[in-house]
């Protein structure tokens, strides 16, 4: 192989590297719900909502974001590990170390209810009220925009 041919082959391989690095993975949503965004930015407009247990074919993560066909999902909302969905969403006792079990096992609503019964002073009603307090995606964008917190062009 001549030097020129070798250089051309190396260049072609180098061009392929980014594609090889962006390996597709199956990710599963671990949180109750999360927004899929148009760009990998927390203030980017939401294009859809992903819910607990939903799976996506994705590339990444890059700078904390997975890229899916629908848009970007933050890595803190998902796992690329194998997920075990047990019957009834309850106990999955013998999952191996690299598998995880989705919501429902261990400390769950049933355990909280039992705990609340034994600790009548614990103020779960105030926690429920606290959880109802949330700022919608649209209202938060207006809050950022009017407060001069979006970078130039970030509001588009």
């Amino acid at each position: 192989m001549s030097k020129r041919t070798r250089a051309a082959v190396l260049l072609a391989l180098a061009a392929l590297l980014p594609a090889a690095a962006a390996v597709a993975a199956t990710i599963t949503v671990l949180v109750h719900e999360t927004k899929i965004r148009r760009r990998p930015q927390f203030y980017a407009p939401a294009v859809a909502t992903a819910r607990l247990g939903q799976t996506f074919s994705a590339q990444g993560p890059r700078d904390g974001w997975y890229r899916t066909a629908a848009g970007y999902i933050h890595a803190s909302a998902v796992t690329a590990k194998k997920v075990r969905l047990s019957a009834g969403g309850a106990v999955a006792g013998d999952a191996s170390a690299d598998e995880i079990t989705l919501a429902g096992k261990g400390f769950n609503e049933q355990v909280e209810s039992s705990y609340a019964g034994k600790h009548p002073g614990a103020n779960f009603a105030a926690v429920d009220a606290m959880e109802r307090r949330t700022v919608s995606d649209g209202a938060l964008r207006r809050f950022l925009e009017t407060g001069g917190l979006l970078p130039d062009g970030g509001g588009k």
Partner: protein
Amino acid sequence: MRLAALLLAAGLAAGCAGMDAAMRTATSYASSKGLISESQAESLNKSETALRRGSQEISESEEYYIGRAVSAQILARYKPLDDARLNAYLQAVLQTVAGASDRPDTYRGYHVQVLDTDEVNAMSAPGGFVFVTKGLLKRVRSEDELACVLAHEVAHVSKKHGLKTIKASRLTQAFAILGTEAAKSYTPDQVARLTASFAGAIDDVVNDLVTKGYSRDKEYEADRFAAEYARAAGYDPDGLKSFLSRLESEPGAGGLFKTHPSPASRLARLGDLSAPPGYRRSSVRDRRFAAAMRF
């Protein structure tokens, strides 16, 4: 039974990574020599699996339920301040800095509640429950400072400082209950035992949050990430320094003065903090801060 304990100890001594293989080899050998029955060997292997699960991370939903119970205990000790405008304003600032953090998503999101006390304090429970006292808010002078205070609490959640205070034995107990079989829901006995582990875990977190405080290292780490998150959200991270300088010049008793390192030592570790590119002061931010702080 003593042999079983020795085998279990041998497995534990081998460490998490090697425990599985070591334990299975040991039980297989003991079974082949007639020292234990096959069913005993299988039972020990299942126990090992259950113990190994204790070293895994707590799931997002379990973290949420731990956070709810810790919050319920905090709200039993402190009266929530019923000020819709103030709480809504803090919620917007919290969601902004949480969104810019490296953990914008928790199981059910981030939520904040102002506590009706003159004690100067801020706390966060696992899963994204954040508490700020009226006494602390009286010492905050701008939205940028407030963002830094809330970002510090987001950092405790993001770095799972609360979960790390839970004694390993609580999780070992809990996972030992779960470790052997699948079921649709727990039996009354399983619920009772899980509740005991759960209550212990809640006590561990509440004790550190309210009484002892996190370790100094965790507080310094939360400061470092608070500055990062605030800056990523478009705020001036120097707000953390101006707030800590005020605490240093106007010291108080109890609250964060008891549970956190001194403001001087925190300031010394922060170093130079620069505002984000394109940062500008905003009269809108000043006005909405002043309007919300009328309490």
